[in-house]
């Protein structure tokens, strides 16, 4: 913890040093939201496909702690954590997951398309790697419009084999765009270990494109936040960077995936790397007791209850409203 504290102070040029208790609160919020979704999914209340980021929360919380509200992010199919950490409306989030008209996307997108443009969250994405070029364009817009903001592209190690990634790395480096690439390396691409999908490591790609690359433990939120604060400041003024976060996919590729392809030892070892456990350990060293942390969890659960109940009470979207929104309604039209 002392290293991290030193780093935070040293790196706190642009943003204030993230407070570990606040970071922990962010982790708990994502974890409890997704556990609630998992439960509701298993009970048949959440329709469609959902992909949970349990075990990866520290990447979302740590990176987002370094961003301003004007910074934009493009996310993945496993995007709940990114969205929640970027500060999207929790009511709108649960309403969307429950396919209600009050959802952020009016019940038209669901889990894989959660977006909140008002907080710079340009969307989860059902297509692996697609968010990379959207973030590329957003970074280009920031530079052209001189907003001073940056764009962040989140992607998994499964996306490393997508051709679009290579195009985007090249263009971001060529144009020195304010674009941070955040690779959430959980070792899996759907049902196959990425060790069986990739002939290279991201650091080698980074070297080829001459983009500074750093690989860190993505499950230590304080560490992620410290590095993110420093690297985001570099991106803002110096062009693209790659932050590779080694992390853990605890749940299956999708909810309902029994993960028969994973061995018991690997799954058993995950709890030792649990981002909440790691953060709680650091907080204990700083003198925060279990009661304090439990209080955070209680607050979060109460907040989630409010959103879930509001979503349950909301109506389902009307077909005519959806039909009227395929194109932008003409100005002056209803």
């Amino acid at each position, binding site marked *: 913890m002392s290293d991290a504290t030193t780093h935070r102070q040293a790196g706190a040029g642009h943003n204030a040093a993230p407070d570990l208790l606040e970071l922990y609160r962010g982790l708990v919020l994502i974890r409890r939201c997704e556990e609630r979704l998992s439960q509701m999914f298993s009970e048949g209340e959440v329709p469609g496909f959902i992909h949970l980021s349990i075990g990866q929360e520290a990447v979302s919380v740590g990176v987002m702690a370094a961003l301003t509200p004007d910074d*934009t992010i493009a996310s993945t199919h496993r995007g709940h954590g990114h969205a929640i950490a970027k500060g999207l409306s929790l009511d709108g989030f649960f309403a969307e997951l429950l396919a209600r008209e009050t959802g952020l996307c009016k019940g038209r*997108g669901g889990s894989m398309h959660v977006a909140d*443009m008002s907080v710079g969250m340009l969307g989860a994405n059902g297509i692996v790697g697609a968010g990379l070029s959207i973030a590329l*364009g957003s970074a*280009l817009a920031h530079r052209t419009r001189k907003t001073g903001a940056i764009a962040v592209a989140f992607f998994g190690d499964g996306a490393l084999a997508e051709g679009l990634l290579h*195009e985007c790395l090249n*263009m971001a480096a060529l*144009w020195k765009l304010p674009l941070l690439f955040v690779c959430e390396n959980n070792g899996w691409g759907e049902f196959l270990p990425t060790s069986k999908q990739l002939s290279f490591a991201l650091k080698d790609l980074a070297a080829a494109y001459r983009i500074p690359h750093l690989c860190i433990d993505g499950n230590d939120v304080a560490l992620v936040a410290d590095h993110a604060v420093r690297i985001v400041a570099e991106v803002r003024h110096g062009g693209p960077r790659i932050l590779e976060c080694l992390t853990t996919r605890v749940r299956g590729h999708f909810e309902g995936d029994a993960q028969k392809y994973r061995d018991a030892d690997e799954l058993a070892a995950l709890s030792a790397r649990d981002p909440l456990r790691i953060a709680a350990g650091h907080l204990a060293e700083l003198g925060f007791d279990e009661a304090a942390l439990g209080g955070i969890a209680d607050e979060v659960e109460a907040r989630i209850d409010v959103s879930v109940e509001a979503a349950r009470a909301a109506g389902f979207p009307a077909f005519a409203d959806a039909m009227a929104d395929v194109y932008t309604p003409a100005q002056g039209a209803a």
Partner: protein
Amino acid sequence: MAEMRYLKAINQALTDAMAADPSVILIGEDVSEAGGAFGASRGLRERFGAERVLDTPISEAALAGAAVGAALSGLRPVAEIMFMDFTTLVMDALVNQAAKARFMFGGQRSVPMVLRTPHGGGLGAGPQHSQCLEAWFAHVPGLKVVCPSDPASAYGLLRAAIDDPDPVVFVEHKGLYAMKSEVPDTLPILPLGKAATLREGRDVTIVAYGAAVHTAMTAAATLADEGIEAEILDLRSIQPWDEQAVLASLAKTHRLVIVHEAVEAFGVGAEIAARMADIGFDELDGPILRVGAPFMPVPFSKGLENAYLPSPDRVIDAVRRTLA
């Protein structure tokens, strides 16, 4: 009135749009230093700067995806894909991202981007540099598709496409780039989704777009010598298309022929024919006929390509058939 080439009209539309709105940028392969593979963006880098006229590497997927991201972040990008055949490489950006972002995000934000691309044969460019693939895009809810036939409509429709809040695939026929015609001194912006009647006639309606409009006009001149008066509708916009204009003309002539250079099967003509067979059924005095390319890739050898492209003779044959 002055004469203007189709390519100059595109260039003028880009110039005027960029002058009118600082959020308009151009992005594509060779659009900046080279001024465009066909010259559509010549002089724009010098006038508006390299920051707004961006040469990309040969990375169609990324440049199209970047246009989506830029459009979601406050710009109005105009992306160029050098040949329509290369739009196979931008399908995800257009179909899964641009077309759906407004809808699937609940109308939070529109995607004001234009993707310009030339289609069409006649230049001996072969199977991968000649295709007319507009029907693919017209099939995707959320995209608009435009295909002008002459300099004035190229200008007016491109200005409208850039002003439009939604993603527009703007298809130019590369065989028309050198075409010159009279245009008014002040070129108007033309609405998307509206057809133009280029020739009035009582006997048959011929609907066409892009270069096929000229094939239809040539056919109409020959038919007029035989006493058959064809009404020519230039569709201009393919998605949305001017259903009411086609229906109104059909109500006048009671016969309909649709002409396009794209492959006939499963094409734009099929959609128009199906709609008119539905809402215009009572007006029809003959079969609705289509004239398009045969079901084969665009061939290279001149004789093959000439036989492949829809000709005035095939339009005349179709008109005679529906009048028989």
